[in-house]
């Protein structure tokens, strides 16, 4: 029961983040196009660079849990497939543990990184948009990656979602 609810919640959060990433990619196209078109007119778009920079961060932050959930990262698998079932299980557990530790640490660090940016008032160069929330979004994304790895512990060998 608990696993089913957990799976459902994480699944939907990953999906929402993936949609957010897709919207960010479309926004990058839209903003860049408008910028190129209006560049030679008396009404140029100000801050296209800023928006594309933020959209890139949102796109990759949103895509990370999805890429992890569909096992979309590149890994060298040929030796892994030669191992026994137990060997593969041990190795997979090790890989997930390392992932949980690294992404967990990074998520924790990003909360403070965001606080630092808030304190120093970090903004984008042209539009002066605040940037502190970007590390917080990254912290959230990394925390969801940790939850995806925990899901893989609970349901070994099963992908959370298909591509």
């Amino acid at each position: 029961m608990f696993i089913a609810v957990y799976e459902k919640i994480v699944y939907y959060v990953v999906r929402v983040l993936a949609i957010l990433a897709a919207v960010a990619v479309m926004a990058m196209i839209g903003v860049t196009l408008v910028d190129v078109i209006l560049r030679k007119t008396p009404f140029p778009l100000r801050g296209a660079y800023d928006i594309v920079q933020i959209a890139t961060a949102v796109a990759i932050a949103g895509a990370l849990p999805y890429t992890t959930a569909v096992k979309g990262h590149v890994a060298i698998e040929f030796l892994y497939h030669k191992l026994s079932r137990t060997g593969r299980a041990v190795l997979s557990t090790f890989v997930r543990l390392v992932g949980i530790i690294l992404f967990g640490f990074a998520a924790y660090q990003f909360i403070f990184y965001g606080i630092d940016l808030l304190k120093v008032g970090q903004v984008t160069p042209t539009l002066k948009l605040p940037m502190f929330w970007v590390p917080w979004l990254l912290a959230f994304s990394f925390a969801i990656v940790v939850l995806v790895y925990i899901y893989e512990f609970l349901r070994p060998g099963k992908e959370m979602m298909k591509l």
Partner: protein
Amino acid sequence: MSPTLIGIAGCVALVVLLLSNMPVGLVMAVIGVIGFAWIVNPSAALSMLTADIYDTFSSQTLSVIPLFVLMGQIAFHSGISRRLFAAAYTWLGRMPGGLAISTVGACTAFGAICGSGPATSATMAAVALPEMKRFKYSMELAAGTVAAGGTLGMMIPPSVVFIVYAILTEQSIGDLFLSGILPGLLTAALFGIVIVVQCILRPGLGPVGPKTTLMEKTKALLGVLETLILFSVVMGGMFAGFFTPTEGAAIGAFGAIVIAACQKKLTFKMLMQSLYETIRTSCMVIIIVAGAIIFGHFLAITRLPFEMASGLAGLPLPAWMIMAIILLFYLVAGCFVDALALIILTIPIFYPVVQNLGYHPIWFGVMIVLVTQMGTITPPVGVCVYVVGGMERDIPLQTIFKGAMPFLLALIVAAVLLMLFPQIATCLPDWFDKLQTVSVVLEQ
């Protein structure tokens, strides 16, 4: 323990962890952080981790990747590849192995709008293999051609590998794109020769196709038009200085969406599918780049790359022999490690060596792409072969590997030609630089 020794230990640990099926980006980040913490301190290592990830994720330069990937995805889903193949077949079908040559032609054209080798292989496997089956082509030749033809997508611009190489070595993306055109066409021509020679020696491999009229040939050219326009606008605009690579990529992605809409292939489902595939591929690439930057910072404080660069440059061997050793390393390692990951992993180590030896960075970029292309069709990690095998499950993997082997010979010939005549890679960027200088002078 000296920093250099820690660096060597880090490289050994990297290889061991890579073999454990751990994602490549994760391995590099973990080793980078642990190594940095060892030499400096844990707090500095964690600060580096966050700063490097934040800088990579919010890099305006890297925004070019999702945009070019989306352009290729939309092209894939909208049937552009099918029309390219039909056009190539109408023109080249009468030659021995005409369908296979048409596949190479279509791969070359599709590579001009798609920056990934495996994606080009997957596309052409879906389009060309059923046709070659219908015309009773040997599956060895057919599948080998599709797998090898896909590798052209890595060399012909826009290429994701070139974008990443340009970012890591601070070279111009435009210059690298230009430098890939002639080697890409040369490789395609060599692939064509390999097919013709095989079909002359064993006519049963690829029967000659039906005759087509001039009218049919002219009509088929319409299928190439959209790709030609898209490629010309994106690359032409970039090379002429009208827009930056990111702007060119955004225009390309938008152009591909417009073409799909005109062909009535654009649906919400197709767009979302393309976007999901785009964010997955882009995230996969950018995570590896972030890992490589973290690992690179660790290596930099160990001074290992500089020690290696001066050590290798000081060897009593001619520069070309050292370069040949480096390329041999790429060839062997490329058989085991994904091409993009391998290039990102090794650039911090070999790039200073190449600079010390006095080689052109743009030429080196083309060479390593060419050499790692070989790895994508050789066992055990021939990713393009696996892609074709995954698409056509009734063809055994060993048949595809066997079919791809003659194309490996063509890639080796291309590499030797590039070693002997580096101008094949560098002449176009040099020519464009001169052209731009002349136009600036004329404007003044």
